[in-house]
């Protein structure tokens, strides 16, 4: 049996506005195994993105814990959490978040700026990842010259460059055409084959069907296959 890399225990989260409180996650628990891919499916507003952001340590849950290597990531100090986000649990948001002044290759390697370690094979690794995602010819281009699909692949390339243990993807095939969707889906399938645990929130049936497991969400986990 594969090793459990992430234990999610009784996660709850609600958002408060002036007039109401919206309960987004209600005591969610599950375990993710090493090298398996999970598609998190559900209606808009069912809490998929919120769940991923909590797993990435980008926001704290109201209750519950996320255990990685037997440690609750939300009890880590800022610097420890930053290292975790840099190398272990890497998150790709659903937004086209890039640094507009940096070209595609620089955007992919941006996390190196924050690391004391010298990435000696940075160039080679970048080339390899860009080739895998069909972006080799665009590495010198600024984001303003890239299409939505190319930027989406750029953000995935940036995540892959980190060589993560766990990859969290929020709607990775959003706005992508059929060809690009296929590239992303194939890439993610390869990753789980390399021992990387992938959790992808998605509305995309093709991507979901490529995952080892589908988790349906409606505030709580209603079903898992």
């Amino acid at each position: 049996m594969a090793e459990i890399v992430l234990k999610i225990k009784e996660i709850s989260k609600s958002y408060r506005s002036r007039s109401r409180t919206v309960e987004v996650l209600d005591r969610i628990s599950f375990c993710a195994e090493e090298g398996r891919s999970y598609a998190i499916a559900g209606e808009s507003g069912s809490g998929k993105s919120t769940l991923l952001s909590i797993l990435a340590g980008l926001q704290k849950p109201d209750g519950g814990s996320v255990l990685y290597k037997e440690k609750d990531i939300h009890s880590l100090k800022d610097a420890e959490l930053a290292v975790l986000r840099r190398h272990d649990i890497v998150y790709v948001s659903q937004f086209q978040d890039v640094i507009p002044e940096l070209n595609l290759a620089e955007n992919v390697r941006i996390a190196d700026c924050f690391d004391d370690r010298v990435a000696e094979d940075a160039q080679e690794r970048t080339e390899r990842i860009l080739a895998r995602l069909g972006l080799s010819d665009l590495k010198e281009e600024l984001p303003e010259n890239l299409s939505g699909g190319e930027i989406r692949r750029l953000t995935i390339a940036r995540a892959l460059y980190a060589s993560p243990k766990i990859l969290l993807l929020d709607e990775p095939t959003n706005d992508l055409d059929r060809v690009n969707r296929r590239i992303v889906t194939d890439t993610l399938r390869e990753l789980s084959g390399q021992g990387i645990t992938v959790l992808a929130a998605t509305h995309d049936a093709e991507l979901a069907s490529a995952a080892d497991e589908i988790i349906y969400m409606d505030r709580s986990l209603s079903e898992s296959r």
Partner: protein
Amino acid sequence: MKTAAFLKLTKKQLSGKPVRSVGLITLVGIMSTVFFIGIFIIISLSNGLRCLKERMGADLMLVPLGEEVNTEGILLKGEPGFFYLDPKLTDRFYNCPVEGIEKTENQFFLASASQGCCDMAVQFIGIDEATDFTVTPWIRESMSEEGDYLSDLGIVVGSAIDVPQDHVLKFYGRHYRVTGQLEETGTGMDQTVFADMDTIKDLKAGAEEQGFQFLNGIDPETAVSAILIKVKDGYTPEQVKRNIRTAMDGFQIIEAKKLTGSVEDNLRGFVVMLYLLLAAIFVLSYVILAITFKLSVYERASQYALLRGIGATGSQIVFLILQKAAVVSGIGTCAGLALAAVLVFPFRTAISSAVSIPFLFPDALQTAGIFGIAAVPGLLSGPLSAVLSAIRISKAPIYQSQRSL
């Protein structure tokens, strides 16, 4: 963390918004220029006052009644002038013992003409080397070699006087050898020629040949423009002034301390205004920079959230923002100081002549110090004005900031 990569990112962020970046750099530059010039003026005034005090050498000056303003003009502003004490009064002073006087000397004032008979219009101060205790020590301090600089019609000139290559100046049709030039004082004495009484008599003879009448029948052997007094230890200039007044009247008695004091009083208000102006400029620049950096930081809030999301710590985000502010400050400060140097140094002489108050430019060491001091507000302005926004954005919730894209 890799500083070079950070600097590259900072450079790209700055060049991505060229108008804003140039605007911020210009603002810091103007602030640094104003600070440099302001501090430069304050130090120059302070140097001028210090030199004036040092060069006065005497505690009291006796001049003819009503000649206080002319005396100030000669000593402070380098305005050529002349006046003479009534010889009877001078005799009375020397024949009437006054308590508290340690020593006295006589000085003789003469002005050269601006016509062709003279190379330039300057103030002459004639001294008797045997009794002089104000000018001779100064000449000795300024000259590298010992010597009798004023003998054989030799003259010693102030620093502002242009000495020709042959070291000869013409006054009233006669030629005089310049034997030395004094160090700069920032006072009227920089435009003064010092001579002994033999030279003064020769000048007077030359002037008379040219049709100038200075002495109005007063015998040049006994003519005196000012009697300078050094008071004894244990006496104050005020006490000795009172003693002279009790013994006789007919003199305008000028206290050297009051002469410099009145200059100091006049300058104090100006210097306070200058400090207030510098403070106002700093505060104004700080406010503008703080607002601009805040806008810039919040405009990039989602980018900073992205960087945090991919592994930047809060303190690295603060560092990134402060580094950008520091680069703006650094470039602005260097440009501002360079501009200040271009504005001040080529026009040193013009500024010095235009200012009719004791004004002595700082030496090289002081100038380096002024550069250092003037650089501080400029260099600090960026990081100081950005630090609050940087800390706030580094603590902003990452997920919510990313969603604000």
